């Protein structure tokens, strides 16, 4: 059933299990105690950072399958994507498995898009169990989107830090677990921000648009949620998204939480928090879902945001189109 841009899942697909792996910098933050594996060495025993990213993603998927008590043959399909060109980490991780793979790209909002797509297929009854996973690595993202690691350049205070980590979850037609009740498909929003260091400002309109679409379609209001979770807006973007929704009559300031803002200790004059596909994946699949399963949160709106730019588009002076998909989680 669909209303507006929101699909409602009447069969209530469930998140049966989840797993997250995070790097050494992330370990020191709030999620350190909740992630299943924490790395001491960001190389993860591999020869390149791209291989390390792929290995993190593979291990997150395997752990999620294992923690749910499933076997590899129980899984019908895997939805995954990442930030690298031609989503190599996800595709390369998928070659280790026997089940089919559907590649997804929506930058940092890949986690919510893959959960949404998996839930749609499970709800329709086409498949029984699907994996949704994504990850990112600071060093590989830095090299692709910015500069070589050893180049001595300053980071502007608006910038964010790409999270090293991967998270995955298994979405099934089981009768217990965290319910996925509805999902709002995002529209691409572009307000003309061209500064590639200021992702928070570029992505905030997309998040606000998806939130308000979701509230309108479901007839809910911000107070109905224990937590409204965005992916990687950072401290600056979080302020902007609160302003944008407040302007339109929705007050989310009480229960809005941003994954990027809580993953590190943010010093606003230096950087705004975490970013990257791994940011929302790690925080959701460790801290948030654990707390939810413990009964601390009853209902969460999870909307990861993604900046759909490439180095070519920003080199040609294009502005940054952004997207945000939301999934409504209940326990």
């Amino acid at each position, binding site marked *: 059933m669909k209303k507006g841009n929101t699909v409602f899942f009447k069969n209530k697909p469930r998140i049966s299990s989840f797993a997250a792996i995070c790097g*050494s*910098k992330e370990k020191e933050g709030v999620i350190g105690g909740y992630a299943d594996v924490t790395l001491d060495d*960001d*190389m993860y025993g591999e020869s390149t*950072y791209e291989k390390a990213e792929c290995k993190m993603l593979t291990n997150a998927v395997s752990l999620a399958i294992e923690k749910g008590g499933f076997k590899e043959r129980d899984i019908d399909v895997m939805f995954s994507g990442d930030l690298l060109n031609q989503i190599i980490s996800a595709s390369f991780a998928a070659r280790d498995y026997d089940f089919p793979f559907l590649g997804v790209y929506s930058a940092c909002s890949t986690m919510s898009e893959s959960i949404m797509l998996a839930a749609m297929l499970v709800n329709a009854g086409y498949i029984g169990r699907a994996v949704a996973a994504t990850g990112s690595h*600071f*060093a590989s993202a830095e090299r692709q989107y910015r*500069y*070589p*690691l*050893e*180049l*001595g*350049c*300053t980071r*502007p205070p608006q910038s964010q830090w790409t999270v*090293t980590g991967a998270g995955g979850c298994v979405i099934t037609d089981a009768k217990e677990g965290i319910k996925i009740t509805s999902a709002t498909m995002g529209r691409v929003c572009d307000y003309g921000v061209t*500064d590639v*260091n200021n992702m928070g400002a570029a992505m905030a309109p997309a998040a606000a648009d998806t939130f308000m679409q979701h509230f309108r379609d479901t007839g809910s209001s911000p107070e109905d949620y224990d937590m409204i979770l965005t992916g990687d807006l950072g401290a600056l973007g979080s302020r902007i998204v609160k302003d944008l929704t407040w302007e339109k009559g929705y007050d989310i300031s009480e229960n809005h939480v941003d994954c990027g803002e809580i993953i590190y200790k943010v010093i606003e004059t230096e950087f705004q928090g975490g970013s990257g596909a791994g940011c929302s994946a790690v925080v959701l699949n460790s801290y948030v879902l654990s707390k939810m399963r413990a009964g601390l949160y009853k209902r969460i709106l999870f909307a990861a945001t993604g900046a759909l730019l490439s180095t070519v588009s920003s080199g040609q002076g294009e502005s940054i189109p952004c997207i945000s998909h939301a999934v409504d989680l209940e326990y």
Partner: protein
Amino acid sequence: MGQEILDIFLAFLKAFAVGGGICLIAQIIINFTDLTAGKILVYFMLAGVVLTAIGVYQPLVDFAGAGATVPISGFGYLLANGAMKGAERGFFYAVTGSLAAASAGVTAAVVFAFLMALIFKSRTKRN
């Protein structure tokens, strides 16, 4: 003897003030415009070339020594100076003079970068 030490001290002071001053100008430009490191390097090198060509940079080099030659504008000074000296010798040297003068810097950068790439690996950062 005392005079000599004072001269050396003064030379260092001048190098510090002029070199630091050039970096300070670059930093002010970065603060107000979001120019990236690569663009700053190119603009300062070009500024060095232009200032040398109109005869402003040479007195600065005479005054501050390393303070004017170590910043990237000094590289521009080297290029322009080579071209100007070459122009006195003939057309061929006018064209090749600039890169010939800068050959030491470029060669050193290529050779040492190659050696470092042989030895080191890039490492990830924590902050």
